[in-house]
């Protein structure tokens, strides 16, 4: 009986974890792949902020605030300002709106901006001096953004501003109750501290001269001139441009408007003007708008605040004539395409002053010596990728160029112009902005997000009632800012929730450690797709296995 010393249990027992010898990965017909998609908030952000990124850092609490702010100012050097005046299209796009309510991104931005000011955080030190000099004409949001980003790239930047103070429409168009001047000033000072030179009360009148002095020029002169419509008006009529009123108020010279003020227009300037009129003592401020509430370009929250302050709106109405305090209004109606048409019905309104807020135009007098810089529809024509005007080395961004006329958009275009200038200075071709895949709502597994424990949820609700991220004037405190940031679903980007790792039935995902995310072990992954299905943020694609 020799030669069979094996234990009697051969074939019955075996060592632990010996299954590692069996690679189940060959079973797979689809493989999970981690992806990073663009979240709708960022896609909707005209400033191009990495909102998901800086919310992510904010989620970490105190230790993450500065990092969050630095991620924020990588795109936008004015977060305290924009945290107040941005109409946050990011929030409109936010996928969380489908779950409960959109994340209060703007309020968190303001929190970060204010925190940075309070703590005196400096903007990043610029790159090494390039030796190139760039002139930015105008110090509105586009100009400041362009100057900041150019400076970050190492160029010597000078900003020339015709007005006495920098800030453009932020300084002279937006009422102080929406944007305190010290906040604006502080953020501009912080840009200056990076080496940007801002020369106020210095109008640039000749592009040729500018180009002689600088290697490149960026035009960001804005659209500060009120657009005019022809309204038959009697001699005693008191008709002024709303933007001028706002500018005068901002300059410390509030005009006398009277007790009854009619504002003609439907944009934010109209609303600002009406609310300003109320603050200037008008007991009756009426906004006359020719379309409906749904069509009004003014931001709904602005309108709501205005109405809350006693501003009235006369919908479907145009001012057809002004005669002294008597304003004649024609009733309008919408056709099948939603366009307003006069009905021939008229009524009258009493107004001491009529404020015109029917649009603003760019002051293009600077271009009188530059016929090669073409102007179309009142704005400077630029190459859509390089933002360069018809003249080599001259770029344009902000309201003076085509596109949306918001400060947020202006900041984004300013940053883009900076890149364009930088590329042009280096004789590089600036690639078009990549079209990112969107992390759309249907990719999400929202089940995982709405599990705020009740006590927290009620805190959140209380916070909203008291501080009202979107609507109220005071900012979030740190706790609520963190909480709000944590409501971000990180659409399309792994935030290390461990679902894939924990829910893999085949134990085929490795966790690489904090910040390192995960790695799929394709030797064993059978491709069941649970990781993708249960990924809250849609950061895993299942792709056909092609062997």
């Amino acid at each position, binding site marked *: 009986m020799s030669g069979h010393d094996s234990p009697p249990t051969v074939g019955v027992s075996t060592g632990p974890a010996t299954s590692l010898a069996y690679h189940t990965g060959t079973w797979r017909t689809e493989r999970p792949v981690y992806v990073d998609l663009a979240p709708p908030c960022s896609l909707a952000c005209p400033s191009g902020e990495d909102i998901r990124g800086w919310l992510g850092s904010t989620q970490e609490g105190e230790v993450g605030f500065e990092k969050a702010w630095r991620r924020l100012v990588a795109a936008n050097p004015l977060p305290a300002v924009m945290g107040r005046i941005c109409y946050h299209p990011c929030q409109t796009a936010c996928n969380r709106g489908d779950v409960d309510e959109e994340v209060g991104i703007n309020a968190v931005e303001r929190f970060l901006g204010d925190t940075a000011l309070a703590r005196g955080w400096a903007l990043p030190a610029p790159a090494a001096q390039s030796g190139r000099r760039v002139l930015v004409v105008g110090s509105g949001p586009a100009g400041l953004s362009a100057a900041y980003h150019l400076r970050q790239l190492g160029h010597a930047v000078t900003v020339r501003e015709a007005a006495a103070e920098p800030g453009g429409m932020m300084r002279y168009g937006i009422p102080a109750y929406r944007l305190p001047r010290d906040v604006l000033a502080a953020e501009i000072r912080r840009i200056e501290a990076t080496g940007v030179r801002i020369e106020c009360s210095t109008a640039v009148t000749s592009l040729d001269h500018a180009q002689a002095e600088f290697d490149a020029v960026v035009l960001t002169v804005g659209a500060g001139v009120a657009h005019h419509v022809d309204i038959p008006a009697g001699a005693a009529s008191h008709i002024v441009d709303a933007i001028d009123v706002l500018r005068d108020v901002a300059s410390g010279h509030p005009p006398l408007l009277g007790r009854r003020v009619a504002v003609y227009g439907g944009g934010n300037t109209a609303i600002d003007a009406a609310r300003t009129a109320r603050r200037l003592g008008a007991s009756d401020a009426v906004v006359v708008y020719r379309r409906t509430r749904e069509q009004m370009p003014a931001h709904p929250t602005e309108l709501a605040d205005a109405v809350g302050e006693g501003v009235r709106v006369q919908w479907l109405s145009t001012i057809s004539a002004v005669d002294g305090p008597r304003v004649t209004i024609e009733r309008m109606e919408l056709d099948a395409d939603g366009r307003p048409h006069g009905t021939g019905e008229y009524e009258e309104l009493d107004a001491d002053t009529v404020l015109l807020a029917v649009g603003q135009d760019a002051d293009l007098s600077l271009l009188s010596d530059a016929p090669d810089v073409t102007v179309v529809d009142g704005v400077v024509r630029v190459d859509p990728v390089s933002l360069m005007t018809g003249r080599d080395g001259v770029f344009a961004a902000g309201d003076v160029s085509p596109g949306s006329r918001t400060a947020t958009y202006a900041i984004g275009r300013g940053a883009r112009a900076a890149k364009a200038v930088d590329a042009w200075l280096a004789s590089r071709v600036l690639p078009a902005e990549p079209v990112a895949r969107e992390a759309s709502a249907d990719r999400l597994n929202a089940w995982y997000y709405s599990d705020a424990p009740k006590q927290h949820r009620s805190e959140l609700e209380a916070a909203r009632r008291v501080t009202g991220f979107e609507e109220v004037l005071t900012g979030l405190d740190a706790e609520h800012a963190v909480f709000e940031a*944590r409501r971000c679903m990180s659409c399309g980007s792994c935030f290390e929730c*461990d679902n894939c790792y924990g829910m893999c039935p085949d134990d085929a995902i490795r966790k690489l450690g904090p910040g390192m995310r995960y790695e799929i072990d394709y030797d064993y992954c059978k491709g069941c797709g649970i990781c993708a299905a249960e990924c809250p943020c849609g950061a895993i694609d299942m792709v056909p296995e092609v062997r």
Partner: protein
Amino acid sequence: MTTVHIPFLQTGTLAVGGRLLTEEERSVQSHADRPSSLTKGHRACQGCAEALAARWVMDTAVEAAGGKLIVANATGCLEVFSTLYPESAWKPPWIHSLFANAAAVATGIAASLHAQGRDDVRVLAQGGDGGTVDIGLAAVSGMFERNDDVLYVCYDNQGYMNTGVQRSSATPATARTATTPAVGRHPGQAFGQGKSMVKIAMAHEIPYVASATPADLRDLEAKVRTAMSIRGARYLHVLVPCPLGWGSASSASIALARAAVQSGIFPVIEARAGELTDVQRIRERVDVSAYLEPQARFAHLFTPGGEDALDRWRALAEANIRRYDLLGGAS
């Protein structure tokens, strides 16, 4: 309910983990160095919730026992897919004897350990619904009745999936199986049959009985931890969706477990000494069709003539909701 109070950190308590959690707040499964008691290389079907739940349960038990856990396993999918000689996907000491005797084998292990003065080593027995509710019921009941120091876990996939999807006494009404075909006037498993192992366990008045699903890891881990903190006979019933037997997408296993709970079909409860002590409330109620329709075994319910059966399903859900106060209205 054994609640885990996790601060709201982006996903709250429903996700496996979260980078913002402290070490103490983490689920066992979220640890990079979790035990992975059932490790890779096992041969379960794609999307097998039993494989998943077994790892969850055992990892938690292993941690709760300080690594001192011995497992007895009934015959069934879990055994077959994990231990095809000469390979084993198990890390803890593990034994499979027969289909019907996992509870008794576990009793023997516990008795042996007690005799050796090794009460620090804990014993877990596990099996599928067939090995628990049907053929193994006598042994399970005996283990309960003696109050042996064993945690018994049933992974209920509602049928004999290992042998090709036949009906068990845990197969739900109307489900199509190989032995309850979807033909005739009353297609699939008949209404009025089957038994509730959770209620049977409770009737033994053992120290701890709970149900859970892979749709709520933290709840499951908490229940295992609770069970492991108690001595004597304990029972955990885990609903485990089976892509093969249920005719569902392999990626849908978690979602189906979620739908089973959120529709009121599968009550997630806790009981001590025979008394119901807690239920998990429905969080986002869904219609039973959300649970049934993704499963091919219920496909005939969604053809003309299936409405009556669907209504009876709704009545079942309503009955559960009433009986267990799943919507939380009563308290």
